[in-house]
C-alpha cells in the first residue's frame, strides 16, 4: 500500500514537473516572441531595415559624420547621391533633389523629431540647415516622392532628422557637451541633457554658434562688386518630455545673419543690414493602444516663423524708372520686412497591426496657416523715414488632408505598399496622390524595389501673394506642382554595413513653378521630364574602415526644355579609417559637374568643381573626450554656385580653405 501511495505521489510529482517544464517552455517562447516583436519594432522605427522599406532611403549616422568632419545638416545632406545645393535670394542655400525645380524651396520636406518644419512664406526650411551634427543622432533621407511619415507630403525628397535628445532606438540619451572653433571666427558650444521627471523622461539640447564669413563677389546687377556679409549667429533649444503614451516636443531656433547676395540680388554697402529668422515648433502627441491590434495617435502641432529684414536693395544714385515719372534715389533704397506666420495642425491617425505581415494606417490632418505680422516698407532717405504696406495680399491658408497606407506581405519575400492622400486647400486647387510600391527580397543578399508615386506641392506665399516690388514677381493664378515618379532599386547586401545599390528614376513633373521667364513672374511651366540613376557602394576594406562611393547621373529638363542649375554628374567619395579604437582619419571628395543655364541666359555653363576635405579625430574610452580636426576644401579650390540670369554675371563664389576643431565629452 505504502509503495502504491509512493508510486502515485511520484507519478503526480513527475506529471507536475512535466507541466512545469512545459509552462516554463511556453513562457520562454512567449517572451522570445515578444522580444522578436520589440526588436522588429525598434528596427522599423529607427529605420535599421531601410533596405526593405518601399522607398529610396539613405541613412547618415552621427559617428560617421563627425569623423568625416561634417559640420552641419546642410553639409550632411550634400553627401547623398542626387542631392545638390542651389543659392536663392539673400544667399539661401537650398537642397535640390535629382535636379527637380532648383528655383523652388519647398519641394523637399524637413522633419525634425517627427515635426515638419517647412514654412509657408517660401515652403522651405533653410534656416534650420545650420543645425550642428553634434546634436543629431541620425539623418534619414528619402529621395523621390513620399515620406516615411505617411502624413508628410514629400515632393522630391524628405529629410528626417532624429536628434540625440530624441533618440528612438530604446537607448538612454547620452548627456554631452560640445564646443567648436574654426577659421572665419567660427565658434560654438552646446549641451545635451536628459533626466527622469515626474515618472517620465525629460531631454533637451541647447547650442549657440557663430561665424564672421565674408565672401568676395563680382559685379551685381547694378555693377557694384565687393564683399558679401554671410555672418551667422544661430541658436536652438530643444525641449522634450515623454511619459507613457504622451509626448511633448519643441524646438526653438533663431538665425541672425547678414544679407549675403541681397534680397533683390544687389550688393549692399550697409554692413548693418540683417536678416533675422526665428522658428518655433511644438508638438503634443498622445498614443494609446485601444486593442491588441489597433493603436490611436493624436497630435497637436504649432509652428511659427518671424522674419525681420533690413536690406539696401538699390545703391545710392539709382534712377528709378517705375512707376513713372523717373526719379533719382540719392540715398538708394532700403527694403524692410517685419513678417510672422503661424500654423496650427491637428492630426488623428489609426494604426492597425493586423499581423506581423500586415499593417494599415489611416489618418486625417487639418492645418490652419495664417500671417500674424504682414509689414513691409521701403525707405528712400537712408532710413530716416519709410512708407509701409502689406507684404502679402493673402493672409491665410487652410489645408485638410486624409491619407492611408496599407502595407502587407505577399508570400514570405514580397511586401506591397498601397497609399493615398487627398488634400483640400482654401486657396488653391484640391490635390490627390497615389503610391504603389513593391519590395521583393529574393534572398538575404538581393533586394528589388519598384515604386510608382505621385505628389504635389502647393505654391508658396512668396510665389503667389507677394505685394512688394521684387526681383521675381508673384502670380495669384498658380496651380500646385505635380509629379509622377517611377523608381526602381536593386540592393546587394555585401555584409553588416557593406552594400551596393542602384536606383533608377523617371520623374514626370507638371506645372513646375519658377520665374525664369521674360517677365520674371512666377508661372507654371510645361511638363518636363527628369531621369537618371544613382549608384552607391559602401565597403569596409580592412574591417576598420568605411569606403563609400556614390555616383549620380541626371538627364532631362527642369525649366522649359533646359536642365538648369543642376549638374548631370555628382560624385561623392569618402574613406574613413579607424586607425585604432582611439584614432581615426578621413578624406572626403565631392565632385559636382558642369551646370547648364536657362535658354535666355547666354552665359557659359557653371564650371565643374571637386573639393577635398581631410579630418583626423581622437576619442578616449567610453565617456572621455572626442576631438576632431577638419580642413575643408584643402586645396583652396575656387568654385561658384549659379546665380539667376541678370543678377550676378560672375555667379556666387563660395568659401575657400577653412578649418574647424571640435571637442565633445559625455558626462
Amino acid at each position, binding site marked *: 500500500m505504502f509503495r502504491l501511495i509512493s508510486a502515485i505521489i511520484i507519478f503526480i510529482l513527475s506529471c507536475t514537473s512535466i507541466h512545469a517544464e*512545459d509552462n*516554463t*517552455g*511556453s513562457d*520562454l*517562447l512567449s*517572451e*522570445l*516572441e515578444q*522580444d*522578436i516583436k520589440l*526588436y*522588429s519594432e*525598434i*528596427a522599423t522605427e*529607427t529605420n*535599421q*531595415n531601410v533596405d*526593405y*522599406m518601399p522607398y529610396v532611403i539613405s541613412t547618415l549616422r552621427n559617428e560617421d559624420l563627425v569623423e568625416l568632419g561634417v559640420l552641419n545638416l546642410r553639409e550632411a545632406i550634400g553627401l547623398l547621391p542626387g542631392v545638390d545645393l542651389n543659392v536663392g535670394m539673400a544667399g539661401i542655400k537650398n537642397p535640390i533633389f535629382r535636379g527637380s525645380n532648383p528655383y523652388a524651396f519647398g519641394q523637399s520636406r524637413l522633419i525634425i523629431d517627427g515635426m515638419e518644419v517647412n514654412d509657408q512664406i517660401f515652403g522651405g526650411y533653410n534656416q534650420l540647415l545650420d543645425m550642428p551634427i553634434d546634436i543629431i543622432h541620425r539623418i534619414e533621407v528619402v529621395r523621390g516622392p513620399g515620406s516615411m511619415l505617411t502624413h508628410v507630403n514629400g515632393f522630391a525628397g524628405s529629410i528626417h532628422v532624429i536628434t540625440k535628445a530624441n533618440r528612438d*532606438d*530604446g*537607448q538612454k540619451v547620452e548627456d554631452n557637451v560640445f564646443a567648436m572653433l574654426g577659421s572665419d571666427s567660427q565658434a560654438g558650444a552646446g549641451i545635451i541633457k536628459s533626466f527622469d521627471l515626474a515618472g517620465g523622461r525629460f531631454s533637451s539640447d541647447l547650442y549657440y554658434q557663430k561665424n564672421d564669413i565674408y565672401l568676395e563677389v563680382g559685379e551685381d546687377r547694378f555693377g557694384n562688386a565687393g564683399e558679401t556679409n554671410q555672418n551667422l549667429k544661430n541658436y536652438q533649444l530643444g525641449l522634450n518630455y515623454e511619459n507613457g503614451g504622451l509626448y511633448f516636443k519643441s524646438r526653438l531656433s533663431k538665425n541672425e545673419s547678414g544679407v549675403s547676395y541681397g534680397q533683390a540680388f544687389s550688393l549692399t554697402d550697409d554692413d548693418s543690414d540683417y536678416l533675422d529668422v526665428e522658428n518655433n515648433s511644438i508638438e503634443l502627441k498622445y498614443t494609446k493602444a485601444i486593442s491588441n491590434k489597433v493603436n490611436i495617435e493624436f497630435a497637436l502641432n504649432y509652428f511659427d516663423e518671424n522674419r525681420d529684414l533690413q536690406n539696401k536693395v538699390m545703391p545710392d544714385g539709382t534712377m528709378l524708372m517705375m512707376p513713372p515719372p523717373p526719379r533719382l534715389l540719392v540715398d538708394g533704397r532700403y527694403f524692410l520686412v517685419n513678417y510672422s506666420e503661424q500654423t496650427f495642425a491637428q492630426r488623428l491617425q489609426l494604426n492597425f497591426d493586423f499581423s*506581423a505581415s500586415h499593417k494599415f494606417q489611416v489618418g486625417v490632418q487639418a492645418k490652419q496657416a495664417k500671417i500674424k505680422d504682414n509689414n513691409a516698407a521701403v525707405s528712400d532717405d537712408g532710413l530716416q523715414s519709410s512708407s509701409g504696406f502689406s507684404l502679402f495680399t493673402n493672409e491665410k491658408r487652410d489645408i485638410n488632408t486624409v491619407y492611408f497606407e496599407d502595407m502587407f506581405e505577399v508570400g514570405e519575400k514580397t*511586401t506591397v505598399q498601397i497609399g493615398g492622400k487627398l488634400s483640400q486647400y482654401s486657396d488653391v486647387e484640391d490635390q490627390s496622390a497615389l503610391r504603389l510600391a513593391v*519590395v521583393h*527580397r529574393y534572398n*538575404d543578399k538581393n533586394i528589388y524595389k519598384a515604386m510608382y508615386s505621385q505628389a504635389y506641392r502647393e505654391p508658396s506665399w512668396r510665389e503667389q501673394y507677394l505685394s512688394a516690388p521684387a526681383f521675381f514677381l508673384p502670380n495669384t493664378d498658380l496651380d500646385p506642382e505635380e509629379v509622377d515618379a517611377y523608381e526602381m532599386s536593386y540592393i546587394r547586401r555585401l555584409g*553588416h*554595413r557593406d552594400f551596393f545599390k542602384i536606383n533608377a528614376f523617371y520623374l514626370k513633373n507638371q506645372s513646375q513653378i519658377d520665374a525664369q521667364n521674360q517677365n520674371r513672374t512666377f508661372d507654371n511651366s510645361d511638363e518636363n521630364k527628369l531621369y537618371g540613376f544613382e549608384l552607391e557602394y559602401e565597403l*569596409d576594406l580592412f*574591417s*576598420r574602415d568605411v569606403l563609400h562611393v556614390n555616383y549620380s547621373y541626371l538627364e532631362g529638363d527642369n525649366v522649359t526644355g533646359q536642365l538648369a542649375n543642376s549638374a548631370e554628374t555628382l560624385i561623392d567619395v569618402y574613406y574613413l*579609417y*579607424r*586607425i*585604432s*579604437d*582611439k*584614432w581615426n*582619419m578621413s578624406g572626403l571628395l565631392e565632385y559636382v559637374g558642369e551646370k547648364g543655364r536657362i535658354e535666355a541666359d547666354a552665359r557659359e555653363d557653371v564650371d565643374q568643381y571637386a573639393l577635398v576635405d*581631410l579630418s*583626423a579625430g581622437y576619442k578616449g574610452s567610453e565617456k572621455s573626450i572626442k576631438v576632431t580636426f577638419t*580642413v575643408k576644401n*584643402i*586645396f583652396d579650390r575656387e568654385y561658384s554656385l549659379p546665380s539667376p540670369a541678370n543678377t550676378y554675371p560672375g555667379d556666387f563664389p563660395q568659401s575657400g580653405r577653412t578649418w574647424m576643431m571640435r571637442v565633445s565629452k559625455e558626462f
Partner: protein
Amino acid sequence: MTNIKLILALLLLMLMHCKSYAYEYDPLLLRAQAALFPKIVLLDKDVREKLKSNSLEILVLHVENDLINAELTKALIEEKYRKTNKNALSIKLVKYSDFKDSMIATAYFLLKGTDDSVKMVSNFAEKNNRVTFSYDYNDFDSNALLSVIMRERTYIYLNKKSVQKYNIKFIPLFYKIVKVVE
C-alpha cells in the same frame, strides 16, 4: 602646400603606429541577440544536464582586439537575462586563440572571428551537443548553429546543415518561430 604635406605626413605616421582595432558590430542587432540568445538556450530540452554548478555557463568567444565588444556582449546578456529571473548565469570571455577542449560550457556565443576559429569552436560544441550562437549568420558555413538577423522583421535563423549533427532537441514550438536556412 607645405602645410598639407605636413598634415598628410602626420596622418601617415599615426597610421603606421596604431595597429589595434576592434571589429564593428551593429549595436541594435547585438542587443537583440543578447536578449534572445539565453532564452533560446533554455529551450533546449536537455539544458539541465548542461548546466555547470546549476548555473547557465556561457562562453563569449572573441578575437584578440575585440575585448571591448566581448565585454559589451557580456554586459548586455547579463542585463537582459536579469529580467527573466531564471537559472543563475555565468559568462566568461575567451579569446578564440585561447580556446581549449576542456572548456565545456552550456552554450557558446561567437563574436566575429576567422572561419577556422569559428569552425573549431562550433565543431567542439557540436561534438558535445552544445548550442553555438553566432553574431554573423555567415558563420553557418563554419558550422555555427543559430543566429538572429534583422531584415524587414527580426528572425531567428537555424542552420539546416548543422541541426542534425548537433543533436539538440528544442521544445517543439520553437521550430515554429525559427527559420531553417542553409
